[in-house]
């Protein structure tokens, strides 16, 4: 469920050195780094939306593209203007990552508690049913 995106992430990270592409150099690497923080935020947002049942393909893909490009552009613009604008992107996206993660955690926690509660009820019902059939 959430494991599939995580697995994909790990595969993505591992596949690049495996097929022999070296990490980028210079400014590009830095912009990509900021852009990947935006990507992390969007993917977590997507997982969250998926768990909450609000997931929409179009929103997710455009969101990913837009966030990555905007983060990239902010970092680039900051370098041109001599302001550390990538920090702005990093701070905003970082705080959103925290928010998304906490919501995912809450959702999983609720679901877990919910399933336990349901299992308990079913056991009770089953035992009640058993007792009623035992004493007709």
């Amino acid at each position: 469920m959430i494991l599939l995106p995580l697995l994909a992430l790990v595969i993505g990270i591992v596949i690049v050195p495996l097929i022999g592409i070296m990490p980028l150099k210079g400014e590009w690497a830095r912009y990509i780094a900021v852009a990947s923080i935006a990507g992390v935020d969007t993917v977590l947002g997507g997982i969250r939306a998926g768990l909450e049942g609000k997931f929409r393909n179009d929103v997710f893909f455009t969101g990913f593209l837009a966030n990555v490009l905007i983060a990239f552009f902010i970092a680039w613009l900051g370098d041109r203007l001599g302001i550390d604008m990538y920090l702005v992107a990093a701070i905003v996206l970082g705080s959103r990552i925290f928010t998304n993660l906490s919501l995912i955690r809450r959702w999983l926690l609720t679901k877990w508690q919910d399933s336990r509660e349901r299992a308990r009820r079913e056991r009770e019902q089953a035992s009640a049913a058993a007792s009623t059939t035992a004493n007709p």
Partner: protein
Amino acid sequence: MTNPFLKHVNTKSWEWPVSLVSLLLGVMISLAWINQKTQAERSEQLPPDIRRRYIEGRIDLNELTKLSEEVSRLREENTKLQNAMADNSKQSKVLNESLQEVKMFSGLTDVEGPGLTITLRDSEDESSGMPEDRIIHDGDVLRTVNELWASGAEAIEVNGHRIVMNTSFRCVGPVIHVEGVPIAAPVMVRVIGDTKTLEGAMKLPGGVLDELRSQDPNMVQIDRVTKHRFKAYAGNTVRKYIKLPEAKK
């Protein structure tokens, strides 16, 4: 499924798009990863404070001391070898003499001579002035060294570090760095040169140390020394970009 909310939830369709993008994200992260090769270049782009922390984390002080000692030993050996070579002929003897002169000038040999020891201490008098005025800064050391050169100093050492043409002083948080090696207060500036001239320069009214002295006279102490002995410069002397211009024939 008895949960009424879960009935309308599309539980499967989000996984594949998210995984696809997640894969792309993994590739991006991998591309921006800092590895051994891109490390040096990336650190140049870090903001100065982060870069400083990053570089300092990589200096192993014990290793540095050990290597410096090794360098001193090898340089000494080099001098001995040059001397031995010079014994062979008169020509090479002359050459060697001029070589040793150059080495002495640039601080690559041990030297000794009369001079001063100037001790700069942080003030312990907490009653006057701002806290930042009560401590010795990199600028104080730098100005002192500069003034000493200006008044004819021939060799200078700061807390055991020989000062050569490319020695730098930097302030890193609470400590001063001499060529990237932190030194602690009190700062001992030892100098070889004409004792009287140097002392005059250091006691000049309105001079470099006057400000410190007016803050707290105990911050500056000047002692005459009849014989200093300085070790040779043990830092890096490898030059990458400068070359001798080709001689015209």
